[in-house]
């Protein structure tokens, strides 16, 4: 049920969000693999659109191998981007954040003002690059860029009716779920789909 919710929001953003092709990578495709310059470009575009970051700075501390994290927009991506992220200059893995307090389990790391969250349900457009490779849609979201609207005072419900409700002999239980929500981009200037292909 929750996965379906995620997939619907994902598909909504893939269909309607503004997009920018990565061009700074070296894999020879269009879009290219993700690079520092592409991240800079997207961050600059969001800043230019007066988009507010979602996460605050994480201050630097005197722990070996860690680094401070800038205030950041949220980048939602498919897990298959992780190897390429590891190879990007300026990438800092989440394990090297100076504080682990605000981390989510899906957080992979950060580049400049983007913090990357990955999921196997992330968005991929099949065979959509100039060379026919899959294109990874990385949704870079600012504060209040996307919303979900509950209808009838609920978003989704999991329903269980024990066997006693089915018949006098209590032979069959019922399990179901239903959904009543809509998702949409609230401000189209505050969500950018950064499209990339893989290099690794």
């Amino acid at each position: 049920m929750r996965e379906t919710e995620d997939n619907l929001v994902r598909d909504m953003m893939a269909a309607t969000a503004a997009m920018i092709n990565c061009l700074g990578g070296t894999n020879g495709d269009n879009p290219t693999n993700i690079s520092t310059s592409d991240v800079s470009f997207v961050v600059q575009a969001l800043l230019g659109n007066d988009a507010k970051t979602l996460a605050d700075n994480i201050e630097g501390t005197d722990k070996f191998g860690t680094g401070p994290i800038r205030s950041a927009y949220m980048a939602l991506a498919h897990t298959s981007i992780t190897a390429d992220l590891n190879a990007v200059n300026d990438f800092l893995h989440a394990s090297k954040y100076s504080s682990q307090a605000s981390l989510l389990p899906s957080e992979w790391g950060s580049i400049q003002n983007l913090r990357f969250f990955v999921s196997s349900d992330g968005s991929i457009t099949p065979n959509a690059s100039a060379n026919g490779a899959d294109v990874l849609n990385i949704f870079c979201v600012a504060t209040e860029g996307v919303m979900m609207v509950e209808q009838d005072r609920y978003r989704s419900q999991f329903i269980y009716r024990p066997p006693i409700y089915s018949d006098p002999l209590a032979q069959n239980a019922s399990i179901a779920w239903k959904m009543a929500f809509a998702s949409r981009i609230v401000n189209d200037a505050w969500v950018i789909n950064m499209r990339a292909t893989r290099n690794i």
Partner: protein
Amino acid sequence: MDNTILIQGSFTADGNAKNIVLPAGVDWMRVINLTEADAANNGHGFEFYWQRGMTDGRGIVYYHPAADQTVAVDQIAASGGFFLVDTSNTDPSAAVAVTGTTNAAQPVVATGSTAGLSNGDIVRLSGVTAAETLGGWDFSIDTLVANTSFRMAYAMANAPGAAGTAGFWRRIPYDPIFYPRWRYIVNISQAANAVITTSVPHGYTVGQRIRVDNTDVRFGMSQIDGVEGIVTAVTDSTITTNINSTAFDAFTFALPISYPVGFATLHPVGMDTGTALLGAVDLLADAVSNTAYVGMRLVAGTVNPAGSNNDEIYWVAGKSFSNLAE
């Protein structure tokens, strides 16, 4: 019988493939071409049947084997019959080799196989040698010549700069499931009311607000990047806007030397109430909505279930209680 569902309908053929929405799903479908049933056209089909388990894209056809009312039956040729549709599945078709593309504003794509394609379909090219910027974006096609070629339906601002010598095409079977969708731009006019041409039918309505994203200077008209406008008139592939682009640079479609490129795109960003009211358009026409559906795609033609132009066609589809394979 419990769990058996029937749904029926009719349409007048327009010569193109027909998608029929069947919310309950479908296990079998029968199509009657009333026009052809009444006529005596040699070789023309008038009744078609498909059932789950038969090959996708085929089925059975009853036809007139002579210019009279006699009847014969045959299996519909591959890719000429019924295709199950589930628009939540957005996988493109398998890649088919392209042998060349012309250097024209509406490039003609040469290929040895056009199986599964109809005029109006959307295709995506990839690996286009020498005309690389033609790859990686979707466009509608017309002027389909079976197993020979098809043409880009909506003209780009300019020719792509070189003839392509090899590559692949794939049919893109469905739009993204959420409306309103972003679209690729192939041309923008320099005018007091700029006309923007999209690569596929855009689906926008009068009154909708759009934003032009044109971040790559190699597409020209950089002044229009980030500019919002209101749609004042539409055709299938163009929108007329209230953006004055008279003083802007010309829009140009990027040439292969610029590859890789960031394509110019169009994004719907809301609705202008006044324009919508004046245009008698639903104020909520821009609402984000999930358009996914399941159903059946009927192929057009004289021996195919979607028939020929102006044919009167009736259909009934069903969801069966059981499906016993013995």
